[in-house]
C-alpha cells in the first residue's frame, strides 16, 4: 500500500499524459477528417447517423484517453517518473488537440 506521506507520482503522470493523448487524438482525427471528408476513414467516423462524424471523432478522443490512461496507469503504478518532462509533453499534446479542432488550422492545411 502506498505511503500516505509520499505517494508516487506515476499515476498522476499517467492521467496527465493520457489527457494529452486523448486531446491530441481528437485534434488529429478532426484535422484528418476536415482535410478530406470523402475518404473511407472520414465516412467511417459516422458512428451515429443523427450526430454525424462528430460521433466518431469525439469517441476516438475519449477512447484514446481512457485506453492510454489504463495502460499508463498500469505501467507507472507505484513508480516515480520524470514529472516535469511528462507534464510538458502533456501540455504540448493539449495544444495539438486545441489546434486540430480550430477551423483556421484546417484551412491552413487545405481543409
Amino acid at each position, binding site marked *: 500500500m502506498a505511503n500516505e506521506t509520499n505517494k508516487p507520482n506515476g499515476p*498522476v503522470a499517467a492521467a496527465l499524459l493520457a*489527457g494529452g493523448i486523448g486531446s491530441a487524438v481528437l485534434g488529429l482525427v478532426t484535422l484528418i477528417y476536415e482535410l478530406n471528408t470523402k475518404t473511407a476513414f472520414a465516412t467511417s467516423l459516422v458512428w451515429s447517423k*443523427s450526430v454525424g462524424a462528430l460521433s466518431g*471523432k469525439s469517441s476516438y478522443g475519449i477512447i484514446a484517453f481512457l485506453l492510454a490512461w489504463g495502460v499508463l496507469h498500469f505501467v507507472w503504478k507505484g513508480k516515480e517518473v520524470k514529472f516535469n518532462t511528462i*507534464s510538458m509533453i502533456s501540455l504540448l499534446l493539449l495544444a495539438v488537440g486545441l489546434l486540430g*479542432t480550430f477551423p*483556421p488550422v484546417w484551412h491552413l492545411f487545405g481543409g
Partner: protein
Amino acid sequence: MVMNVREIWTVIHGMVFGFIFLLGFSGALYAVYSMKPGWQTSEGIAKTVKNIKVYMWTLTASVWAAVFTGAYIVYPWYRAAPPTGTTDLSTFPKFLLLADPNTANWHNFGMEWKEHVAFLAPIAATVVAFVVSYYGPLLAKKVGERRAMMIFFIFAFATAAAAGLFGAFITKAAPVR
C-alpha cells in the same frame, strides 16, 4: 413563457450543465491554488481537500453531461437537413445560418469549433479531479503537480468557455426550435 422539448434540452445542456461548470471553475481553481502549507493548517488542508474532491467530481460530471447532451440530443436537431423544397428554415438552424452569407460564419467557424473543442474540457477536468482524489492533502506539498493541474483546469475552462460562448451566440442567431 412556453418552451418546447428542444428548447428545454438546449437550456439543460448550456444553462444547467455547462453553466455549473463555468460558474464553479473559479472557486475550484482558487481552492487548489490555496492549498499551500504556509497558507493553511494541516487540518484546514484536509478539510479543503474533502470539499475539493466532491466539488471537482461534480464539475467534471457536469461538463461531461454538457458535452453529451449537446452532441447527442441538441446537435442532431441543429444539423438536421430540411426536406427538399423547404422554404422556412427556422427549425433547421444550421441551414438557416448557411443560407445567409452574413450568418454563415456562425456555423462555418463558430459551430465547427464549438462542437469539437468542447470535448477537450471534460477530458482535462477528469484528469484534475483524479489528481485531487489521488493525492488528497499531499497535494499541498506537490508544487509542480499542483501547477500542472491548474494549467489543465484553466485549459478545461477555456475550451468550455469558448464552446459556451459560441453556443450562446449561435442560439441567438438561430435557435434550436
